[in-house]
């Protein structure tokens, strides 16, 4: 047997180039490309009265300056609405350059093509735009007020959507206890360390537009560019080699700059590059998380949920390019791991004069979990029973799968939980954090400190469709080339897909080379988001490898004069089971798979026409076969697979400073079968860190005029290592029955329950209600004063 690598902590193949400075991020290429620099709106809501570029145009090194009026053809249309939905009654997307109005600070108004970014910024300073400002609509209160973001969208409502299962009204009317609760989360953002970037080159000889883009989905960039520039798809090649973090933001294509770099490259006889700077990333990419929830929950004496009615408002910013996916995820993921016979949810997605809102890692699940888990804690507090006990009494049991929520998930298909063991997961987490003995530790808190403990559970729909594909090709040199269309931004795809292919095909891991996110290698793909890459592309490359294996065995059977059923592939050799002396290396099978007239190598002689292969009764390529030892495999899931987890945390609060210190952070995580524990744990570490950031450090603070007040890393407090504690992890593996590998997604999991679990622990420590996140020491200080629970 070839040593299996699935499940092993294999070291990453990506790392060598990245630790030696040989990575290839988008901005690394094209040092002489024209630089695209945007003039952005300083107003949140204004009419564009006039634009004067005459002085800027005079500057040496400026190639061209465009305003909306200069945009030809489809470039003048609004950008596409990527995900329409029947409930999205008033979708709005922005123009590439502002047409008459600007609706958030940071919106692109003028495009400058300059010799470099320095000169481009010089020119930007010389562009004179006259605005007529209007009242800005900021925050959910602003959206619900009298002023409008889009004059033709009444009440600022982009979408008003409801779903229900069971009969909530009766359930609540009959419930022995009913609580009404309010929970709010503020804005944050993915904030990858590499901003958005695109580098476009037009090769007029081959008539190809070649685009390197910092994207999670190169096929989206390709089809968007081809469509808007009105050129054939075949002329557009898009690839993402290294991407410096995505976290959801790099799914939302096309950005105005994607189109302008491509168009500029075709029109200015020079490649064109856009490299977003940090301020631009804050004010002109995407945000998430701003949401306000009202929940009404009915339950019995034991704390069993009888009915839940949730009404929430989602601040979608100024535009809705990604439709209403984020609030829809909140709506469908809110029930979590609990039996909820009667559930109704309604949301309104509303416009504000702020940066657009699209999914950021976790994708509106943190809000769902915050709402549900805070609700469970309140039920426990109301009845005076342990928080873990309330959860145990409500869990969907392991024998209840598949469990149909009765709702439609974000992939447009039924939300049906496929597998899991929520009671066991909670038990593991409680034992890790030593839940039962916490009272002792609480009493040992040093003077001036309070300790608290919290727990939170979640279920996460992952690995959704529509599909991904993978291609596997055995080279005559012996290397196995694998490609898949979705892109990588740190998830270790090159390693895990190699592990899968190595095992399926029976070759050493080291012989497998993976390329992701290159439309020249693989044309069809959806993208890397929704914790779907391992599930979809993983199963697709597995299928491709199985097809290659079948083909290799058929070819080898001829060469070895053996029955295909008697053959196996071990360490890259096709051999007769039990008789390894009768063997042929895969590289040689690859030679035989491609009958040749010409030989370019010693090995290839064996496949040339006088080598005596095959029978004269059949053509060299038999009917129904293709040359080459290669195959394409597809995986299209019937629906999403549901991962789950439980987090537990112990905190200590300094009563003088109100700083929250995390003493222990424990995670139990179930993503089905684990391909590579090193990588899964890395994903959890990073996710939890982002969750802690969102709970205790980060927010996006707008003033009443719609200016983002903290658009820098000095004031947007992304944590350093000094703020992130050690994270302890345990796994549970309940394989998914939905896909052959039994895997579920893991990319977003870490971030999802963090705000909920930290709120639970702070509430436990302080004794007053925590209903909002993030929570800064300043907030906690004033909440403690207001609660009257001042330190003794």
């Amino acid at each position, binding site marked *: 047997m070839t040593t299996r690598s699935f499940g092993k902590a294999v070291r990453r193949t990506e790392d060598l180039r990245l630790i030696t400075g040989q990575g290839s991020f988008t901005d690394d290429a094209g040092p002489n490309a024209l630089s695209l620099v945007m003039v952005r709106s300083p107003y949140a809501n204004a009419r564009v009265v006039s634009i004067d570029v005459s002085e800027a145009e005079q500057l040496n090194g400026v190639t061209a300056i465009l305003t909306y009026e200069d945009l030809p053809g489809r470039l003048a249309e609004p950008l596409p609405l990527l995900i329409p939905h029947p409930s999205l009654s008033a979708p709005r997307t922005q123009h590439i350059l502002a047409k008459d109005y600007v609706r958030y600070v940071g919106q692109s108004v003028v495009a400058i093509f300059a010799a470099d970014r320095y000169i481009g910024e010089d020119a930007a300073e010389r562009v004179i735009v006259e605005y007529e400002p209007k009242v800005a609509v900021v925050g959910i209160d602003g959206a619900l007020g009298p002023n409008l973001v889009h004059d033709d969208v009444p009440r600022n409502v982009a979408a008003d959507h409801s779903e229900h299962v069971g009969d909530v009204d009766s359930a609540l009317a009959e419930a022995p206890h009913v609580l009404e609760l309010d929970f709010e989360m503020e804005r944050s953002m993915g904030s990858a360390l590499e901003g958005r970037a695109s580098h476009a080159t037009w090769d007029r000889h081959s008539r190809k537009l070649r685009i390197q883009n910092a994207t999670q989905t190169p096929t989206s960039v390709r089809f968007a560019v081809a469509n808007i520039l009105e050129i054939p798809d075949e002329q557009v090649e898009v690839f993402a080699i290294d991407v410096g973090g995505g976290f959801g933001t790099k799914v939302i294509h096309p950005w105005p700059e994607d189109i302008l770099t491509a168009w500029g490259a075709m029109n200015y006889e020079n490649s064109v590059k856009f490299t977003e700077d940090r301020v631009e990333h804050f004010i002109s990419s995407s945000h998430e998380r701003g949401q306000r929830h009202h929940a009404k929950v009915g339950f019995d004496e034991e704390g069993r949920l009888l009915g839940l009615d949730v009404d929430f408002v989602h601040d979608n910013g100024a535009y809705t390019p990604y439709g209403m996916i984020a609030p829809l995820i909140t709506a469908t993921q809110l029930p979590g791991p609990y039996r909820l016979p009667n559930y109704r949810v309604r949301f309104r997605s509303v416009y504000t004069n702020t940066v657009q809102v699209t999914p950021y890692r976790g994708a509106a699940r943190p809000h769902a979990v915050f709402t549900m888990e805070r609700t469970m804690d309140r039920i426990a507090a109301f009845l005076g029973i342990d928080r873990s006990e309330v959860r145990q009494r409500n869990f969907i049991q392991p024998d209840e799968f598949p469990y149909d929520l009765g709702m439609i998930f974000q992939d447009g298909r039924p939300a049906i939980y496929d597998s899991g063991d929520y009671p066991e997961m909670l038990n593991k987490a409680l034992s890790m954090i030593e839940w039962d003995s916490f009272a002792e530790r609480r009493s040992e808190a040093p003077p001036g400190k309070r300790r608290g403990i919290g727990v939170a559970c979640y279920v996460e729909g992952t690995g959704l469709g529509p599909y991904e594909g993978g291609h596997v090709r055995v080279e005559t040199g012996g290397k196995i080339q694998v490609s898949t269309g979705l892109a990588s931004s740190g998830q270790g795809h090159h390693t895990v897909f190699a592990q899968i292919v190595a095992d399926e095909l029976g070759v050493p891991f080291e012989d497998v080379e993976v390329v992701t996110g290159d439309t020249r290698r693989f044309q069809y793909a959806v993208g890397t988001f929704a914790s779907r890459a391992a599930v979809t592309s993983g199963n697709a490359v597995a299928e491709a490898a199985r097809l290659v294996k079948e083909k290799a065995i058929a070819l080898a059977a001829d060469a070895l004069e053996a029955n295909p059923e008697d053959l196996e592939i071990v360490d890259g050799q096709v051999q007769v089971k039990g008789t390894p002396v009768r063997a042929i290396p895969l590289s040689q099978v690859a030679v035989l798979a491609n009958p040749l007239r010409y030989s370019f190598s010693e090995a290839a002689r064996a496949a040339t026409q006088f080598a005596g292969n095959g029978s004269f009764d059949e053509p060299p390529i038999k009917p129904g076969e293709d040359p080459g030892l290669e195959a394409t495999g597809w995986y299209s899931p019937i629906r999403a697979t549901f991962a789950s987890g439980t987090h537990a945390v112990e905190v200590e609060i300094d009563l003088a400073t109100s700083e929250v210190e995390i003493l222990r952070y424990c995670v139990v995580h179930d993503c089905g079968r684990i391909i590579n524990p090193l990588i899964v744990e890395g994903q959890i570490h990073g996710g939890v860190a982002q969750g802690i950031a969102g709970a205790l450090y980060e927010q996006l603070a707008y003033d009443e005029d719609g200016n983002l007040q903290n658009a820098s890393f000095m004031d947007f407090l992304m944590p350093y290592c000094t703020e992130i504690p050690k994270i302890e992890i345990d796994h549970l593996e309940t394989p998914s029955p939905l896909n052959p590998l039994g895997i579920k997604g893991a990319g977003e999991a870490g971030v999802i329950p963090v705000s909920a679990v930290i709120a639970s622990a702070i509430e436990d420590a302080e004794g007053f209600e925590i209903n909002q996140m993030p929570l800064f020491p300043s907030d906690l200080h*004033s909440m403690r004063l207001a609660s009257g629970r001042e330190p003794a």
Partner: protein
Amino acid sequence: MKPASFDYHRATSVEDATQLLSELEDAKILAGGQSLIPLMNFRLSTPPHLIDISNLPELSEIKVDDRSVTVGAAVTHTTLLKTQRVASELPLLVDAEKLVAHEVIRNRGTVCGSLAHADPAGEMTAVIRVLDGAVRTSSVDGERTIQAVDLFEGPLQSSLKENEVIVEAIFPKLGRNSLSSFREVARRHGDYAIAGAVSVVDYDDARSIASARTAFLSVGPVPILISFDQLLAKTKISDIGHDEIYEIVSSQLNPQADVHASADYRRHLAAELAWESLKACV
């Protein structure tokens, strides 16, 4: 985020620097650049000329004598932090330096540069204020000494004239019977403090308090000094009551709110930190 164009001048001496400063319009001094260059990258500062003094040997010295530690204008935070004699003769400087940003910024940033920058959140501004130190400046008009109390006029506003360059900062040493302590709270380690307090307590020979004062950072337009002489003279450190200190401090400070903290929280924090830092002067 690229700086606007400027002309670069590498000064060959302090005299050359002051000459250039007087001749060139709106020129700025570049030492470590760790405060200036971010402002230039944001184009919040667009000086047409930069005069680089970072390589001048005469500005690279730390002198320690009986009365003070004198730090030249090209001395980096790291150099000050790692100078043994400073640690033994005026440990407060080392305590403060450990809180200045991160090591990588301290490696280039200069002590005098942060004073010239006059950021009320800067640790060194509070330190020089509590020590009643001074800076020595040079210009074509000659040299002068500016006491710390007169140096800071507002947020990022110093009393330096346009043609003046700080050549050194003078930090008076504490007496044998004096102790100091620096406390601050920042949202992230290495950030500008939400509030900070640096205290000095002078004792008499009977180990009673002769004098006590605290300088605050991040709670006003300039570093603010509060004297506790009236309250604490002749008392023992163990007698310092939390509530009295808290009351004095919170009644005298009027900080601003920002995205990180409310004014009330800042005031509360400053009061708590004053108490803590005073108590730590034992």
